């Protein structure tokens, strides 16, 4: 009964979304206040209905209602509660319902907190948001209905792979979706502005927080996925340039570009048309990501042929929304003249360079991701694109971005001086070069990657600190420290996020350049050197887990004869799923992780053992956390909380300047 009510609520939500996407739009066109006022309550109602629908599906999972097809194929009575709940979005149908729920949450948030939006713009934004809802709810109901009943329910479910029952993976999809769908807000604002034919500073101020929030969620989601791959997959790697990873990375790059270009719209009323285009593309890439992952077209062209209905439907959504918005853009972009002029050397130009590099980087990822598909479908050739390609073709743009970031971030608006911003960055440059030289002298191999990565990372990180310090004025040190605490949160957010990017750049290059790997056969009781450590395989024993049997090694790591860690790498076998797994044992450290993996027993006796020293692994996640935290700091800036009043003050403040 509850399930049927959930199903019914979803259909009702579709009807409400239909109303939300049409009448307010008509009302905004006609200037009919009553029709426009429909949008807010409709958005709230949509959230209630989709929320109820989602709750009903969750209820079905929690109570293990095996009359539902989705529950049967993705759950089991004995599964822990956390994973029964995460099982709701651990499948195609449920994850799309989550998609629609998040969409409804964003729509309702505009209705609730958008009190300061002009009535007309608000009605149009909510109508576009409603239209996206219509498309995805149709997709859900027509091709992927999670409320499908089985005529003959089985006694128990087929379970989810035990390995996917992991806290990191349980929360990875919701964060990614909050990011993907968050970009729909930027899209809705862009389309509404195109219909309106007007983009001003206030528009930039309304779009930016949504983009920032979406980017923060994407950052957290990607970092969670990468961390999970690192500790769970047992390769010691953290990023595989897998199509699924790329699908989340492209929107992240474009969201980063968008949140920078909307600053220019907000502060300088320039780059308007470009920002609109970027907003359309950012959401377009979210849809492309959804298409690539959901249609199965990437895993295998045949998987797509097996289930063309879903793939074609998403392709249709992608075509209608991105294509429609681009046509609208082509018709209306000319209306939006830029007001703020700027010279070639200015903060605006630096942000344009940032945008070009991020967009090109996203484009390289896109072409690399679809190239195998192009090869099979258009060229009739079997082509592969993987990590070596991306390392060669993607990295140069990131290097260029890191090089221009510190001076660009310190340039003045409108007309700046490169010489001046480079002068204040001299200490950061010297420090970065000194660190790189030190690393070059200390490292054993002759790879340039490590020192260069360290130099770039330090340049970006110290540049961010220099930027923050420069904001405190020119008085004595005490007064500057006092001002530091009073700087707007947006300044702190900018510095924190840029600092985090520097840390991430350093950590990525350190892990790629200085990772130590050792593969060998070890007898029980035998020791072997690993970098400056000694690892001893004490014993290997059979252990029974709750729902698996395990071959567990006990290994002692010592440094200079002093034991520092006892680690237990495992090989597990899950009899229900008939699946063997490796569980790496990791000793986390500030400057390095020790990463041990136990392999097969060798015919000659002894065990295969694979061990890594992963330098600065924790800095990678630390950098991502700093970037996300920087975004949150910016988001909490006073400016966004008082956006309504600030707009009026701005207008009044113009003559005084």
């Amino acid at each position, binding site marked *: 009964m509850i399930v049927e009510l959930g199903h019914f609520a979803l259909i009702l939500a579709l009807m409400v979304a239909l109303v939300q996407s049409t009448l307010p739009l008509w009302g905004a066109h006609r200037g009919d206040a009553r029709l426009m006022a429909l949008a807010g309550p409709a958005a709230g109602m949509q959230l209630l209905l989709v929320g109820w629908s989602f709750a009903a599906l969750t209820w079905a999972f929690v109570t293990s209602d095996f009359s539902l*097809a989705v529950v049967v*194929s*993705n759950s089991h009575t004995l599964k822990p509660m956390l994973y029964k709940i995460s099982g709701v979005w*651990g*499948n*195609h149908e449920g994850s799309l319902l989550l998609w629609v729920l998040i969409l409804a949450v964003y729509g309702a948030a505009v209705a609730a907190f958008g009190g300061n939006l002009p009535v007309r713009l608000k009605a149009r934004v909510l109508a576009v948001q409603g239209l996206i809802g219509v498309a995805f709810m149709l997709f859900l109901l027509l091709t992927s209905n999670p409320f499908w009943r089985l005529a003959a329910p089985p006694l128990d479910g*087929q379970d989810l*792979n035990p*390995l*996917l029952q992991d806290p990191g993976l349980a929360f990875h999809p919701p964060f990614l979706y909050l990011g993907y769908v968050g970009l729909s807000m930027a899209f809705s604002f862009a389309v509404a502005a195109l219909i309106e034919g007007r983009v001003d500073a206030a528009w930039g101020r309304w779009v930016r927080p949504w983009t920032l929030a979406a980017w923060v969620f994407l950052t957290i989601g990607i970092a969670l996925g990468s961390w999970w791959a690192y500790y*769970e*997959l*047992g390769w010691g790697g953290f990023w595989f340039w*897998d*199509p*699924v990873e790329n699908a989340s990375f492209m929107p992240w790059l474009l969201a980063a570009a968008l949140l920078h270009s909307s600053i220019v719209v907000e502060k300088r009323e*320039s780059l308007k048309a470009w920002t609109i285009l970027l907003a359309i593309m950012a959401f377009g890439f979210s849809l492309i990501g959804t298409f690539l*992952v959901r249609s*199965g077209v*990437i*895993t*295998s062209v045949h*998987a797509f042929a097996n289930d063309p209905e879903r793939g074609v439907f998403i392709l249709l959504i992608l075509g209608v929304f991105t294509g429609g918005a681009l046509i609208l853009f082509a018709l209306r972009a000319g209306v939006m003249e*830029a007001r703020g*002029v700027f*010279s*070639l050397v200015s903060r605006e*130009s630096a942000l344009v360079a940032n945008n*070009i*590099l991020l967009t*090109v980087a996203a*484009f*390289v990822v896109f*072409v*690399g991701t679809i*190239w195998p598909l192009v090869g099979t479908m258009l*060229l009739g*050739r*079997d*082509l*592969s*694109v*993987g*990590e*070596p*390609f991306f390392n060669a*073709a993607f990295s140069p*743009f990131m290097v260029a971005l890191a090089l221009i970031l510190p001076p660009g971030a310190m340039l003045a608006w409108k007309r700046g001086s490169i010489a001046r911003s480079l002068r204040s960055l001299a200490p950061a440059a010297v420090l970065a070069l000194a660190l790189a030289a030190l690393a070059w002298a200390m490292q054993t191999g002759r790879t340039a990657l490590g020192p260069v990565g360290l130099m770039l990372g330090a340049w970006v990180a110290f540049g961010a600190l220099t930027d923050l310090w420069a904001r405190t004025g020119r008085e004595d040190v005490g007064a500057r420290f006092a001002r530091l605490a009073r700087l707007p949160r947006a300044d702190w957010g900018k510095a924190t996020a840029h600092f985090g990017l520097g840390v991430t750049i350093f950590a990525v290059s350190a892990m790629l350049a200085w990772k130590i790997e050792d*593969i060998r*056969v070890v007898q029980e009781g035998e020791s072997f050197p690993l970098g400056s450590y000694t690892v001893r395989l004490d014993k290997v024993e059979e252990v029974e887990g709750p729902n698996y049997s395990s071959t567990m090694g006990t290994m002692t790591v010592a440094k200079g004869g002093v034991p520092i860690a006892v680690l237990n790498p495992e*090989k597990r076998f899950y009899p229900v799923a008939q699946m*063997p*797994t*490796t569980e790496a044992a990791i000793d986390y450290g500030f400057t390095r992780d020790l990463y041990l993996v136990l*392999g*097969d027993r*060798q015919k000659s006796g002894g065990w*295969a053992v*694979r061990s890594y020293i992963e330098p600065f692994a924790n800095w990678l996640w630390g950098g991502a956390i700093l970037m996300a935290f920087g975004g949150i700091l910016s988001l909490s800036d006073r400016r966004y909380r008082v956006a309504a009043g600030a707009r009026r003050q701005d207008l009044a403040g113009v*003559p005084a300047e």
Partner: protein
Amino acid sequence: MTSLKSRWGGTPPYILALFLMLSPAWAVQPDEMLADPALEARARAISREIRCPVCQGETIDDSNAPISRDLRLIIRERLVAGDSDTEVVDFIVARYGEGVLFKPRAEGVNLVLWLAGPALLIAGIAVAVAAGRRRASTEATLSAEEEARLREILKQ
């Protein structure tokens, strides 16, 4: 794969891809490795750029499929026989096709893949510079109008 398909039929492809990746990470085995560290390092570098012919998106360095082991052994055989790195790669491509290369060769139609980024970069810079010029020229021509507006604003 067929058994996977039936058992995990309702599972989204990306989860399936994860299943495949989740199989025990037993790539390079100790008994395959060459005694000469320099040769072994070259073998590893090559095998990180070759795709396992029967897997999705896995290098033969990471894969534990039997054919990947064979390929790893072939690489080491050729290296011991004195082949250069390019000769080894050519040897494998000649037998398994260009699809095993994770970094497609920058020739023929693959130039599109390689030049897509640089081409867009140049186009982007050109558009930005052109827009900048246009902006600068409108600044010059509008100055009279702007002056009028400035006077108007100052009067208020």
